[in-house]
């Protein structure tokens, strides 16, 4: 008597939040609602990422629309070797490269030497002479009240282009390092350097806002 009840509860839960594997299955059977659920789940993140790869919002919207068409055309052959999310990003990157004429062209990457913290804040022995002001305790209320999350989003959008792409995929979308390297044709080391520069820049800004440090 217990098992059917459990199954019903599980089925209800499943129906409320279907995972991607279930949605792919339903989409292959021609379920329009499954497509709409995927659109609700991924369209906005895809559009955000497309905006880091092409020069205008209008082109980004076209690229994402193309990505959805690519999904529909390819769904029959999708073998699930990568996650659906990764596969969508892969389609998007290919479409965006075609749209911006950067197909097959890898932009030469030099990590540069921009320090994470102004060297003037360290003594000749490499130790802090102007140490960071402590601001991480009980900062949650200020982050909420002062709209920090939205302002951080705007800041990420102003990072140099590849830093912005890496920070967006890693820290906003939560893709693993290996997938980001494959998507953006980066070595592990370069991916980490870009992530480091991007995160360090956002930290400097937050420190200036929350710790009243001079923005450096």
């Amino acid at each position, binding site marked *: 008597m217990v098992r059917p009840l459990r199954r019903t509860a599980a089925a209800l839960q499943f129906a409320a939040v279907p995972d991607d594997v279930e949605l792919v299955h339903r989409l292959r059977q*021609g379920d*329009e609602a499954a*497509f*709409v659920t995927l*659109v*609700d789940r991924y*369209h*906005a*993140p895809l*559009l*955000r990422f497309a905006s880091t790869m092409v020069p205008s919002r209008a082109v980004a*919207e076209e690229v994402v*629309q193309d990505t*959805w*068409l690519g999904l*529909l*055309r390819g769904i029959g052959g999708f073998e699930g070797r990568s996650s659906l999310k990764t596969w969508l990003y892969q389609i998007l990157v290919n479409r965006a490269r075609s749209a911006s004429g950067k197909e097959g062209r890898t932009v030469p990457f030099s990590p540069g030497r921009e*320090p*994470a*913290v102004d*060297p003037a804040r*360290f003594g000749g*022995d*490499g*130790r*802090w002479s102007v*140490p*960071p002001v*402590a*601001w*991480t305790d009980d*900062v949650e209320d200020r*982050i909420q009240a002062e709209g*920090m*999350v*939205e302002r*951080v*989003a705007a800041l*990420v959008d102003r990072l140099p282009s590849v830093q912005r792409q890496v*920070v967006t995929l890693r*820290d*906003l979308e*939560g893709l693993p*390092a290996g997938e980001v390297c494959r998507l953006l044709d980066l070595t*592990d080391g370069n991916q*980490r350097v870009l*992530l*480091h520069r991007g*995160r*360090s820049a*956002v*930290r400097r800004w*937050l*420190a200036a806002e929350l*710790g009243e440090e001079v923005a450096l």
Partner: protein
Amino acid sequence: MRWWRREIVCQQVVELVTDYLEGALPRRDRERLEQHLADCPHCAEYLRQMRLTIATVGRVRPADLTSEARDDLVALYRRWAEG
């Protein structure tokens, strides 16, 4: 420059912190960094700031899909399903 080889100093910590969080430091460097963090409250604070930075960026949510964009995509789906 002798300190450079012997121990990790603060100015190096701020450049190694991402490799550390990514689990990309060789074991000996990781141990030297952790020793430094245990001894240096400023670098420990710096690490907390980087973690909080990452968590704050992780809270950014994209704007909601407009109903117009959703309608366009439903139309795209129907054209594809018919064609």
